[in-house]
Structures are given as C-alpha cells and as structure tokens.
C-alpha cells in the first residue's frame, strides 16, 4: 500500500500489525506541528500545573496510597508539611509516607497522624517532637526504618512501591529537568546533590516536582531528567535557605572531638588501607569532620592521594579535592554550601543516586568500593553493634543514613564516639537499638581508648606495630562505667513503635514504646 507520504510499502511488512504505514495524524508528536518559538513552547509546557491540588488530582492519588519525599532540604524543608497540609485539606486519608528522612521541622505531621491522614511512615530517621511523640506511642503502625541503600533497594525492587513522589527542587525547567542548584541563577535555595530524590523519580508511578525556581530549558546539568517528571508545581518557597544549608559546615573546636579525630586518623594511617589511591567517606559530625582535616595533614606528610571520596560531601572534603588530594568526589548528598558550589563547578565532583551509592545488591555500589569509612554512633556495645537511632533515654533521635551500608561495604570501618556523653556511657553491654551489626564494625575510637573488633586480628597486629595503644571493648565499657556508674534499664513497654530493617529489608531489631512519665 501507499503510505500518507505516497510511498509504496510492501504489505508483508504491515502484516499482523507489527508495523504501520506513516500517517502524521496517528504518529502525532513526531511531526513538527507548529512554528512556536522555543520560549513560547516552554511557556506552554503541559507539565506545569497551576496548583498542587490540580497536580494531585491528575496524578490519580487515592486514599491508602504511598507518597514519597526526599530530605535534601534538611531542617529547612517546607515541602513535606506544605504537601501534606494540602492533602489533608483535600480529604485524603490513610496514606503511607515514605520519606528518605524526616527531621525536626516535620513536627506538624503529628496532627496529620492523629487525624489519620498519615497511617504509616517509612524513613531513614526521625528527630525532634515527631520522633519523641512516635517513641511514646503516637502511631498504631510502627515506623519502618531503612538505610539509604536499603531504601533504594526496596524501591527499585518494588518492595516499597511509590505511587506519587512529591519532590522539591531548587531549580526545574518547564519540562521537568530538575536539580539541587542551577547554572542559570545564583538565587536558588541550593541543596546540591539530589541523590535520594533521584531514586523516587526513577521508580515512582507519578512524579510531581515542587519548585520555587522555574528556569529556562534546558536546565543542565540536571539531577532529575524530564522523562521522569509528570507535573511541575511552582510554590512560593520550597524551604528556608539558611536551614537547608549553612555556609561551610562549621569546623569544630571542641577539644574532645579533635582528640577523637586525631586518634581516628592515627588508626587510619596504621590500618593498611591508607595507600596512594585509597578511597574514603567521612561523615558530618564534629569528630568525623575534624578527621578529614587531620587526614589532610597525614596525606600531605606521607605523599598519599585518595582516588575518590564518597558520601555526604562536606566543604572539608571539597577543600582536599581542590587541593588535588582527592581525585574524584561522588556525591549523594551535599552537606554544605561549599559542597553544593563544588558540585556545580568542579568537573570531577559527580552527583550520584542512592542506588548507585549504596544498593546492597548492585555490583559497583560505591560503598562496596570504599576503603575507609568514619562513622559516628550514639551507642556501641561489647559486640561492636552500633545504635544510631535512639538516644540514651530510649527516644528516637537519629537516622540510619548510610551507616549500615558503608560499614558493610567499606574494607575498613571506624566508629567514633566520646566514651561518655554527660552522664551516659557510649559503650554498653547491649545497645538499646541495633542499627548496624557488629561484624561490620572494625574499630571503635573514643577519646579515652581504641578497641579493634577481634574479628580483625590483622588490624590488631597493625595497630600494635604502629604503637597505637589498644583496649578491649570490654575495658572501654568498664572505664566508662567507672566514671558514670551503671545505668538502670530504660522503662520500655511492649508496644512496638519502630522496625529497624537491614539493607536487604530483613528485620534487624524493633524499637519499643518508652514509658511516658514526663
């Protein structure tokens, strides 16, 4: 037959409907349909919806569905509260909230939980009033805690199915290319990398971008690409600039943190994993941050350069990168403005998503390529198990984050903690909540002693050779007890308020309700 363009197409090619003859009326969209300018077409983008309510209606959100958010705006986030306030007004009920993490600013969720707008929560962590209320039994359904890698895996394997993702973005063009900064304006509430949000964008059924900066197409580089985005809603403010990130993460002057950091660096230098071309991740806590600075001195002294740094990128790490001490940066989350600026300007500072970062079952997950990781802890026990979720009072006040993932993935994992905090010991017989299994923790460094996991006898040998004084973990526990005494058991009740999962989704531990007597 002849197609619309008048060309003869053999019938055999069209049999069984496998292929069809050219017809511009049917293959609409492939044909240049009108002569609008690029600017005109951007203005007419059908993805931009003039209200959140409209976008929600278009997304097909129903009661009982799962909605998701990212935590790149940290304590400055307006998006979670804004969206759930609107959903509550629209009469939605029984939603499952799957956020990459929740912080102090999300206390207003308490009301939505009480009103059954939100029935269950999936998150990496909880802090502030919301965390306290949940610890004291606010929710009927326990919160599911996942590590960053565990969440990425759960989403990509559809164990955690997201119906609608509401993703705040500091910049987005009219077709959905979104990022945590923009090359078109300095004025955004930059958050740098959008590594956690990218997983949601990849796998959610519908993706709604909320932004306060619609920038000209094409918004490159983009963290989230246009083909993943269904709707774009412009809102006045996605967050509080000053709380999304401060300038550079403040360098600690706390002498105890500095002491811990110095010891951690001595341990790294003696570990056998401090070689030219090694890789590292250090967190953003006071001691971990100081570790980066002391490590710099050691790297210069021994003429050692790192191949890459991963993580949670901070200004401290960026400084080493710009000095040529760390070749490449892989950034799932930028902790401060210096890190965000570097992501924007430095060619070898690469944004990665949470699957790329820490998916337990993906070959080449960056955590599995790490040599050294330095991690903080709230509690450690004599089995080297770590708790980063609940405080010494049993109340949730933390996040698993990448703790499990990096401890398991890195060749050498160091956990840093002060031996005591106020009257509480950091080293216990049993952690109150198990978040990172002890067999993935190689060394515990405190201000008053270092203990190597007996599972790593070769590390013990290397430390001895370097004259690093070691204690057993039991000795550290006793040392702390001698200072602070022995704590009474916390008044936990039977109700389970949290489920701590491991990277693969298996249940590691449960968090129980704490008696409410204040």
């Amino acid at each position, binding site marked *: 037959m002849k197609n619309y363009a008048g060309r003869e197409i053999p019938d055999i090619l069209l049999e069984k409907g496998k292929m069809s003859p050219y017809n511009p009326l049917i293959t609409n969209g492939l044909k240049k349909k009108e002569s609008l300018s690029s600017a005109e077409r951007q203005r007419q983008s059908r993805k931009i919806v003039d209200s959140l309510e409209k976008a929600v209606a278009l997304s097909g959100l129903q009661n009982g569905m799962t909605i998701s958010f990212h935590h790149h705006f940290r304590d400055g986030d307006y998006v979670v509260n804004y969206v759930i306030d609107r959903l509550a007004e629209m009469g939605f009920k029984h939603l499952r909230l799957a956020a990459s993490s929740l912080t102090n600013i999300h206390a207003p969720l308490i009301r939505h939980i009480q009103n059954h707008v939100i029935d269950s929560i999936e998150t990496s962590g909880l802090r502030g009033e919301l965390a306290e209320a949940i610890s004291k039994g606010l929710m009927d359904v326990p919160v599911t805690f996942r590590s960053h890698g565990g969440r990425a895996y759960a989403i990509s394997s559809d164990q955690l199915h997201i119906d609608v993702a509401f993703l705040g973005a500091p910049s987005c063009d009219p077709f959905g290319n979104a990022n945590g900064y923009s090359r078109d304006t300095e004025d955004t509430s930059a958050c740098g990398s959008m590594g956690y949000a990218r997983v949601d964008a990849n796998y959610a059924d519908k993706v709604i971008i909320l932004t306060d900066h619609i920038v000209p197409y094409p918004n490159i580089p983009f963290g989230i690409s246009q083909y993943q985005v269904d709707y774009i809603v412009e809102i006045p403010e996605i967050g509080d600039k000053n709380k999304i990130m401060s300038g550079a993460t403040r360098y600690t002057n706390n*002498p105890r943190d*500095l002491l811990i950091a110095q010891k951690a660096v001595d341990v790294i230098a003696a570990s056998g994993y401090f070689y030219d071309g090694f890789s590292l991740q250090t967190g953003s806590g006071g001691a971990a941050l100081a570790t980066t600075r002391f490590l710099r001195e050691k790297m210069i002294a021994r003429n050692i350069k790192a191949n890459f740094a991963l993580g949670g990128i901070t200004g401290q790490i960026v400084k080493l990168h710009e000095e040529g001490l760390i070749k490449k940066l892989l950034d799932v989350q930028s902790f401060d403005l210096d890190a965000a600026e570097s992501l924007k300007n430095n060619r070898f500072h690469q944004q990665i998503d949470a699957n790329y970062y820490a998916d337990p079952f993906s070959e080449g997950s960056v955590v599995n390529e790490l040599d050294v990781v330095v991690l903080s802890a709230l509690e450690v026990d004599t089995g080297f198990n770590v708790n980063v979720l609940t405080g010494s009072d049993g109340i949730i006040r933390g996040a698993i984050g990448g703790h499990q993932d990096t401890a398991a993935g890195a060749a050498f994992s160091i956990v840093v903690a002060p031996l005591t905090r106020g009257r509480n010991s950091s080293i216990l017989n049993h952690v109150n909540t198990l978040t990172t299994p002890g067999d993935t923790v190689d060394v515990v460094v405190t*201000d*008053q002693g270092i203990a190597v996991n007996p599972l790593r006898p070769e590390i013990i040998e290397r430390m001895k050779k370097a*004259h690093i004084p070691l204690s057993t973990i039991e000795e550290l526990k006793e040392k702390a007890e001698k200072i602070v005494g022995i704590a009474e058991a916390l008044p936990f009740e039977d109700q389970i308020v949290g489920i701590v999962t491991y990277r693969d989704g298996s249940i590691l531990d449960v968090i129980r309700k704490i008696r409410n007597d204040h």
Partner: protein
Amino acid sequence: MNRLRRTMLFVPGNSPGMIRDAHIYGSDSIMFDLEDSVALGEKDAARHLVYQALKTIDYGTIEKVVRVNPLNTVYGQDDIEAMVQAKVNVIRLPKTETPQDILDTEEIITSIEKKADMEIGSTKMMAAIESALGVVNAYSIAISSNRLVGIALGAEDYTASLKTTRSLDGVELFFARSQIVVAARAAGIDAIDTVFSNLNDMETFEKEIRLIKQLGFDGKSVINPRQIDVVHKIFAPTEKEIEKALRILSAMKEAEEKGSGVVNLDGKMIDKPVLLRAQRMIEMAVASGMYYPEDNEEE
C-alpha cells in the same frame, strides 16, 4: 625518671564539665585553679568540687596540681588544707614574692600532713612568680624548700608590675624568663613558662614555644587542650638528636660493663652533663611517641 612538665593544663576549679575530662588530653600535668578563674562568691564551691574530684576521679599517672589562693586572702588556708587532704601532688602558690611566702605555705602543708598521717614532704610545691620583686628573688625562692619542684612565670601581673604591656615577641619578658630559668637550673628544679591566651594565633604561640625551649624552660602552662600537642611537638627531639642520644647511652652502657668510669664515643670523652642530657632526650622521645624502648630490646 624525672617527671616531664612540658605542659600543665589549666582547668577552672568551678567547672564540673572540664574537671571530669581534664586528664584525657595528654598534658603532663593538670592544674586545677581555685584562684583567678573562680569568682569570689564561688571560692567555697570550687574548693569542694576540686576536693571531691581529686578524691573520686581516676586521673591515672598524670601529675595533679592545684593553684590555691594566696595565703593573704581568707581562702588560702582552707584551699591548702582541702587539697593536701585530697592528696594533690603539687600545691602551686600564686604571686610568690619572697622565700617567706613558701615557708609559710610549707608550714601549713606540714601540719596537715602530720594531722592526716601522711608522709611529711609528700605534697610538693610549685611557686608562680608574678612580680618584679618575685623575679628579683627567684633564686632564693627556688631554694627555699625541698618541696619545690618548679618555679613558673606569671606574665600578666608581672608586666603590670613592670609598668609595661605584653607584646607579641615578648621582649618585656626576656629578663624574667632568663632569670627564672637560671634560678631553677641553679636550684635543680623545673622552670615553667607563662600562658599564651590567644587561641586563634597558633603562629605566635609556636614562635613563643620555640623561644622558651631555646631559653631552657621545661614546659609551659596551657589554657586549652588544643595547645598541648603543639607544645609537645616542638619540645620533641629530632630523629637525629634521638640517634645521637642513643649512641651516647650505649657507649655509657659499654663503659659500665667494662667497669670503666670514662665514657668514650668516636674517640671523644663524654662529660656527665652530656650523658644526663642524652637520658633526658630519650625520656622526651618516649613521651613524644618517637622512640619505643621495647622495639630495641632484642639486641
């Protein structure tokens, strides 16, 4: 082995948070302060607090020093009694001007040691010299009591008494520093330098430590744990110095084994002061983590 006193960490006496952790930073001594860092209305509270801390907290082998209030205040006597009873290692007397100040303090210490059934003389003393008169009397102060383990310069009051001010290079302290080192050396005790209070100016701090090390001081009072490592690094011997000291000591050992009283190294006779300095150098190297005797035992 003589005690090293490279760093003496000041700890305000009424601050429980700082008192409990004072020993973790690796200074050679801790100096709990009951004097200038404690408000007049809290002198009793600080005294009780340091007393209880000394009796309870395990500070390990670190030297425990307490700076008491001067005897001419209403607090001095109570301070001394409480601290001696709590078995402090060293009472540091501020504003020492004459040997009599030391003798008066010693008398009180002795009477408390007797009362408490302690060994007489077990509580040591240190004198801070903080005035022109004190500097002039440095030697007679330094030899006034067997309890004295060191004399220290207190520069703030001293510069005021000189009618001048502190400068970055410390030229106004030059005489006092030299006088105190010479007096201490002549008396066979330690010389400790004054504090450096600008924590943000590490550069000048390092310069000052190099200066006082060269002048002959044994160490320095520090006001923040961050200063400790800096002092220890500068006081640490070099690899070369350690190597030379080790050769001197092994020559000495050889001479001893031969029953010879004369120590020879590379054909040169080694004098006693050189031997002593070599020993001191190795002690310092061990303390600085630069030399590990157990590594070298096999030979």
